[in-house]
């Protein structure tokens, strides 16, 4: 297992947002995490990246315990995150955003990686000198993803990459996410759009109020009556 989470808990003051989360992700898998508003999905990803402290339980990555590791060390180990709401560096240029994504990387690979991202998202090349904050929502999402890829992650965490985007753009973004997995990257995808996420994923987890309540192959979850009723709106 590339990532193994056991009994993970996390709090905001007295509010417990994670109530003992167990999950495991194997190398090369695309795993989706779905759940309603406020279930704790973002908190889980933030705890995996180390920007939110774990109050209990453990996170093992590639066999090492990283539960207490500082965030920038986790990026160096290969865990990158595309945060909820994109969080691009608005006043800085598109290219500076990408270069900052490679902050932990080696100087030699930066130029080639930059070109690779420009090939993947040609619009970013067109807008390379423009301030990131002036891009449209979809373009900012592409930038946030490309910035995370600049870190050359082994494990990519994505928090609602389709939030607020038009259906066509959502499709493009999710197709790109699927292609990362096809290229051999391990992907953990958080989505409120459960149907879209489970359609491209290998496996899925369902989260409710800080706990994993269901998990299995994505195909089975799509067919599950409870999941259909609660998350697929059918």
């Amino acid at each position, binding site marked *: 297992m590339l990532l193994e989470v056991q009994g993970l808990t996390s709090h905001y003051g007295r509010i417990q947002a994670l109530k003992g989360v167990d999950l495991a992700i194997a190398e090369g898998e695309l795993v989706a995490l779905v759940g309603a508003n406020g279930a704790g999905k973002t908190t889980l990803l933030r705890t995996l*990246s*180390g*920007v939110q402290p774990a109050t209990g339980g453990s996170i093992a990555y590639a066999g090492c315990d990283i539960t207490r590791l*500082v*965030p*920038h060390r986790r*990026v*160096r180990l290969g865990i*990158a*995150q595309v*945060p909820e709401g994109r*969080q*691009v*560096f*608005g*006043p*800085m240029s598109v290219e*500076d955003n990408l*270069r*900052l*994504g490679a*902050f*932990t990387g080696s100087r030699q690979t930066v130029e080639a990686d930059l070109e690779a991202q420009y090939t993947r998202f040609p619009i970013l090349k067109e807008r390379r000198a423009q301030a990131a904050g002036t891009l449209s929502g979809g373009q900012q999402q592409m930038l946030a993803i490309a*910035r*995370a890829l600049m*870190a050359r992650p082994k494990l990519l965490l994505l928090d609602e990459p389709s939030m607020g985007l038009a259906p066509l753009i959502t499709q493009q973004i999710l197709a790109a996410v699927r292609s990362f997995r096809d290229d051999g990257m391990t992907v953990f995808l958080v989505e409120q759009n459960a149907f879209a996420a489970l359609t491209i994923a290998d496996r899925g987890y369902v989260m409710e109020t800080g706990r994993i309540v269901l998990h299995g192959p994505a195909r089975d979850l799509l067919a599950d009556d409870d999941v259909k009723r609660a998350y697929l709106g059918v």
Partner: protein
Amino acid sequence: MAEFLQFFFSGITVGAVYAMVALGFTIIYNASEVINFAQGEFVMIGGMTSVFLLSAGLPLPLAIALAVAIAVAVGIALNVLAIEPARGASVVTLIIITIGASILLRGLAQIVFDRQFHTLPAFSGETPITIGGAALQPQALWVLGGALVVVLALGWFFTRTLMGKAMRATAHNRLAAQLAGINVRFVLMLSFALSAAIGAVAGVLVTPITLTSYDAGAMLALKGFAAAILGGMGSAAGAVAGGLLVGIAEAMGAGYISSDYKDAVAFVIILLVLFFLPRGLFGGKSVERV
């Protein structure tokens, strides 16, 4: 006219010092939202340490380099010993910590140095240059030139180097910076080191003109703060413009009204900005009224 020019020269000279102090405020504020009231003590440490190392027999350039290095060490120590341990405390708490630190540094300076006024020899003589009937001290050119070099070097650092960009990114979005693998604690430490270095350089340059003493920092912090909020807290361009404006206003006030009111000018500017222009001239973040 000659009189006006004379006041103007002295205004931009002290203004350049205030601008450097204001830049120090800006850098730490951007990294942490903390207004570091020990900023003036970095200026004092730069000046006083140079004076004492020079009188201990060190050549001036070496004394200056060591003084700046010592100020940087003090800046880092302030971060490691006082700010880092209070991580997670409110910004107001952190500001109060910096006020405490400034009082402590003043006390230590009294013990390590003394309670006298001191000066350094002017770097290139004291023969004034006459321009339009007004006299300009050669040391004033050192202050202005030094401030210009500081501004250009900072501009290069923050727009051309990856570390400088990382510091700006952290100021803009700390969470995203952490997720990009930027060590935000290192960024904070670097901001204290940079601010201390800039303050010390200002102190070294201006000491031949204004003298220095263990308690010179308090007034400088006040004026640098006035400059920073006049320019707009967080804006580097604003800090420079604000510094020059405060310096000129002070020199004109002292010249045309009375030198008794020299130090009152900064207070008046602080009050006016807080009431009428909370975002400053360059539209930085508004300073909360506590």
